[in-house]
Each structure stands twice: as C-alpha cells, then as structure tokens.
C-alpha cells in the first residue's frame, strides 16, 4: 500500500534573476516498507523534492507552486505549519549529508534526543534518556550512557551520521528520508550505515527514500529507482528494470559513465557531454536534448510524455514513440546514432 503519494509536484525559487524551476511536475509513490532511490546529477532537483515533502522549502524565495503530497492519505501541502511540526521527526524522519546541519553544536546529544521525544511523545526525561540510549545502541554506538553526555564535535563523521539516524528514528517514523547520507563518509563506514538502513527496512518495515549519486548504493538497497534530470523524473522503474532494461538516454549515460569495480576489461568510459540545463530558462522540449546523442528534431520543441513500459516502469523519451528509430542501451553505438 502506498504510504506516500506525490502528485504533480512543482517547486520554484523566485530569485532576482527570475524563477528557478527546481522541480516541475514530479509524481511518484513510496509503498510501506519499501526503499526507493532517487538518482541524478547535482542540481537536478533531488533535494528540493524531498525538502518539499518535509515542507522545508524556505519561503521566500521558494514556494511549492503546485501538486499534492499525501502521507497516509493526508495532504501535507495544505497542512498548517503547526500540524507539519508534529509530522516532522515523528512520522517522517530525515537524515542529511552533513549531520552538523541538523545537530546543535552547543547541546549534548542526550539533550537533543530527549527534546525530540518530549516534544513529540510527551514522555518524562528519564524515560526519554532510556529510549535515546536504546536507539544509540541500535545504530551500533557502544557505551550509550556516556555518549549521551557528549557534544556533536566529540563524535567522528561516521558516528555523527549514526547519531542522526538514531535521532531520525526515535519516534519510529513510517518514512525515513535520507539525502546523500553516506556521500561524505568513507566506504567502510558507508557499508556500516547501509547495512543499518537495510536492517530497518527489513526488520521494522520503515519506508525509505534514499537520494544518492552513487548507482551502486541504490543497487543494493532499493527495490525501485527514480531517475531525475532537470527538475523532472525522466525514468522510473524497479531496480532490475533500471539496471537491466533502461530506456532513457540519460539513464544510459549515467550507467556508462561510471567504471565498475568488477569489470575485467578496461573499457573506455562514456561521459555525458556538456552540462545540465539552466533551470532559470528550462529548455522548451526535452530537458536532455542538448546532451543527448539520439536527439531528434521534435525533442527540441516538444517535451516527451511518459510511456508506460510495465506496471512500475516508465520513461519520458521520444525514442519510445512507435514511429521513432529503434535505439537501445547496448544496441547502437553513439556515433552511428548521431549521424
């Protein structure tokens, strides 16, 4: 069953230079106990999408222009801020790339954790401390009683990220949003954090939205993947579909530009030429046209609609039009397609 449904979400920032259309017309859902990955280059609207879900878009200059965000049927977009505060941290937990942005440097970890519990659940201080210690243990922090008395700077990067996860989970949220939670961490620490998130999903049935630019990370944790480009979802499908039968040239580009550790031959990487579109003046047609080796005339003037490939898999590309030339991920080489 769908826990979260995002429908036609558009969020913009109104700057002196004009309207930055960070997210335009994004729709997806997250089922209970499901982990969904969002991938794409920086600036493509991943963070703004989840900040919109949390209603953390600074206004001004930002504004959710349009759309609905339903959490267990309740529309968050129209919820008064006061109600929203009850949802943040309680029903939706969030972890960021840099834990220091959400930890208060002058308060002990214990104080910060108990405040969350007192605020959301109205329980007493001792009970709250007990629960906080339990959660620190759960995320693999030993000596929790001593750790609760320490300040954020006394923790290493990986440990701070664990504290953040413990804090995000304190009230047993149904949905955990993780925005590049391991990007700043070393791989051995990343492996620890990912293992922890996998456990949460499997044992506590927490739903997860994981934002990352590392395709390897989503391959292991997520059952579905959303590929964003230029503020839009260009392709979405099961992890199997996205890796084994990708249909959008941008997804192809992402997959071909990263080397695989297990590749035995040293094949040349295929970069995506150029850079992402300017969201101040988004292109009229397909946002990827300027960088797409398969672009056709129509791509420059008309945005492609979604084609449903199966129940879960859809992509927005003119190549999926019945009359378009047949081009596949591994089929035609890039040069042939261009000429």
């Amino acid at each position: 069953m769908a826990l979260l449904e995002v429908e036609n979400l558009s969020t913009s920032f109104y700057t002196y230079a004009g309207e930055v259309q960070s997210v335009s017309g994004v729709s997806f859902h997250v089922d209970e106990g499901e982990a969904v990955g969002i991938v794409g280059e920086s600036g493509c609207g991943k963070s703004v999408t989840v900040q919109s879900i949390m209603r953390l878009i600074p206004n001004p200059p930002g504004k959710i222009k349009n759309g609905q965000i339903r959490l267990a049927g309740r529309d968050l977009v129209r919820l008064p801020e006061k109600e929203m505060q009850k949802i943040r941290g309680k029903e939706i937990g969030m972890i960021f790339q840099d834990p220091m942005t959400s930890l208060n440097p002058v308060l002990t970890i214990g104080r910060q954790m108990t405040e969350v519990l007192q605020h959301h659940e109205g329980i007493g201080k001792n009970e709250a401390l007990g629960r906080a210690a339990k959660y620190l243990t759960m995320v693999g922090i030993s000596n929790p009683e001593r750790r609760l008395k320490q300040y954020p700077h006394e923790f290493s990067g990986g440990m701070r990220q664990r504290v953040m996860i413990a804090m995000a989970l304190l009230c047993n949220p149904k949905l955990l949003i993780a925005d590049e939670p391991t990007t700043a961490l070393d791989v051995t620490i990343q492996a620890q954090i990912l293992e922890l998130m996998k456990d949460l999903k499997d044992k506590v049935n927490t739903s997860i939205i994981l934002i990352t630019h590392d395709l390897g990370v989503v391959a292991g944790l997520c059952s579905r993947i959303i590929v964003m480009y230029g503020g839009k979802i260009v392709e979405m499908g099961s992890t199997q579909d996205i890796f084994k039968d990708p249909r959008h040239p941008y997804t192809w580009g992402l997959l071909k530009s990263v080397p695989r550790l297990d590749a035995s031959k040293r094949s040349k990487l295929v970069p995506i030429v150029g850079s992402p579109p300017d969201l101040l003046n988004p292109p009229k047609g397909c946002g990827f046209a300027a960088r797409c080796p398969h672009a056709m005339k129509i791509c420059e003037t008309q945005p492609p609609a979604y084609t449903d490939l199966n129940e879960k898999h859809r992509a927005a590309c003119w190549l999926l039009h019945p009359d378009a030339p047949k081009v596949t991920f591994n089929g035609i080489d890039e040069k042939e397609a261009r000429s």
Partner: protein
Amino acid sequence: MSNEVILEVNNLVKHFPINEGFLSRENKKVHAVNGISFKLHQGETLGLVGESGCGKSTAGRTIIRLYEATSGEAKFMGRNIYDLSKKEMMTVRRDMQMIFQDPYASLNPRMTVGDIIGEALDIHHLASGQKRTNRIYELLETVGLNSEHANRFPHEFSGGQRQRIGIARALAVNPKLIICDEPISALDVSIQAQIVNMLEELQEQLGLTYLFIAHDLSMVKHISHRIAVMYLGRIVEITTSQDLYDHPMHPYTQALLSAIPIPDPDVELKRSRIVLEGGVPSPIDPPSGCYFRTRCPKAQQQCAQTTPELKDCGNGHLVACHLV
C-alpha cells in the same frame, strides 16, 4: 609504459608536530606518513587509495616537496629531491606538477585563465610575447576549452571546466610526472568520466606518468596500472589493478573492496560484505604492531607486537601482513 623508474620513494616519513603550548612536556605529533616505499615507472599510473586521513595527500605533497620530509628519500630521475638546492629544485618543479581536488581554491580568482596558465610559463621562462599567447591557446584546446576562455575569470566556469584549467596550468611546463590529488572527487559522475578520459588521452599523447590519489577505488582501478593501498600512513598492499581486485591479500584491502557498491543489483544482492567495526584510529597515537589490528577480523597476538613488513608474494605483489 617503460621500465625506466622515474620516481623511487624509500621509507618516506612525514610527521606533523602538534603545538600544545610551549610548556607541554609531551612531544605529540601526527603520524601522517610512516615509512612508505614504492617505485613509479615512466608512463605508468600508480593509484594511491585509502580512507580519508590515511596520509595520501601528505604523501603527494611531500613527494613534490611542498612539505619537507621527516626522514626517507624521494628519488626523482635518480636524484633525492630533499638533497637539492633551491635552484636545482626549480627544474624538478617543472618536471613534477600537481593537480588538486578543489580546482577553485587553487586558481587565483583575480587572474584571468590566460594569465593563470601564462604565469606557469613565465616562472620557468618558457615563452613570451606572441609565442606565450599561442601556447596558452594551444593548452586550452588540449584540455577541451578554447582560446576565448583565456580572458575569463575562474568563477565563470563550472567545476569540471575549472579542473580542466588546473590541468592546463600543470601541462604548461611540459611535466613528466603529475601528482593528481583527488582531481575528480568533487565532480558529478558524468563530468568525472570526461576528466578521466582526458587524463588517459594526455598520458598516451605526452607519455605522462601519474600518481593518482583518490578514495574511489572503482575509478582508481579503471585509471591505474598498479595500486598502492594505504592505511594510517603505511602502504599495506601494492600490486597491479586487476590483481588487487582478483587476489586481494591484505585483510584491509579485502574489506575495502567488499565495501564498494557495484552498480548491478544481481551482483549486489549476492555479495557478502566484510563490514569492519568502528573507524580508523587516531594518527596521533597509532596502535602498536600492525596499525590495522584494532579493526582486523583476523588479528592475532603477534599483530600487536611486531610490525609486518611489505613482503613480495610473487610477481611484485607486495603485502604487509603476518598471515601471508
């Protein structure tokens, strides 16, 4: 790639003293690099990997003599660079260049791109007048930019373009060896591929030698002929890239490789991970014996007592572990 050794590093040590007030009795120091040795051949790329803080940048900076070594030597084309006079060092500086992770921080924001590249030419009196201008244009084109970019300032460029400018500046003096310190870590994946392909092409065309420092093992394996794995300032394993992946012998290398996600769900779901406990110990007080023993799943008593030396396990595959 030839057999000529262009750089030979022997027992290189770099410690940073910690100033804890002048009345402090203890002479504490950061053990950033603790006796590393390796050889680099003409035209080769040697990858240097390891988790943050393990001394990769310090090693690179000491080898190019941005830092003085605490002890040990770095022989560049046969001469120990720490024995060279300032004047002799100038010529070596031409032959050894460095590019950095954050190209923006290393580019003077008040200089045009043309002058940034031109400055390198001026310092070494390599070209002046029209020749200088032509050389700048040529370098810009070599790195995939064009002559119009010469009059612009660094802030007008994207991250990937700035890295290209940094590379053009390094190339200006016709170096033999380039130390690349995380040159792609700050870039998006699609842009990383652009820069890596360019570095590979430049190596082919100009016969460059690279010491390629990074923490992304997938990319390091892609670009390097051989890889050295560092842990707390020591090299624990060194061999060819493919051999390192196929037959990792040091427990740390094994854990590191198993932690790297592979972009393929079929592979990921079947893999078993060696998840290491805890983090890297402080380089101020490294453990006795084998530095890795506090996290090593195979540690034994002797690991706390004696330091394992790098041993050749055949075909130049060097490993520092008591178990091999």
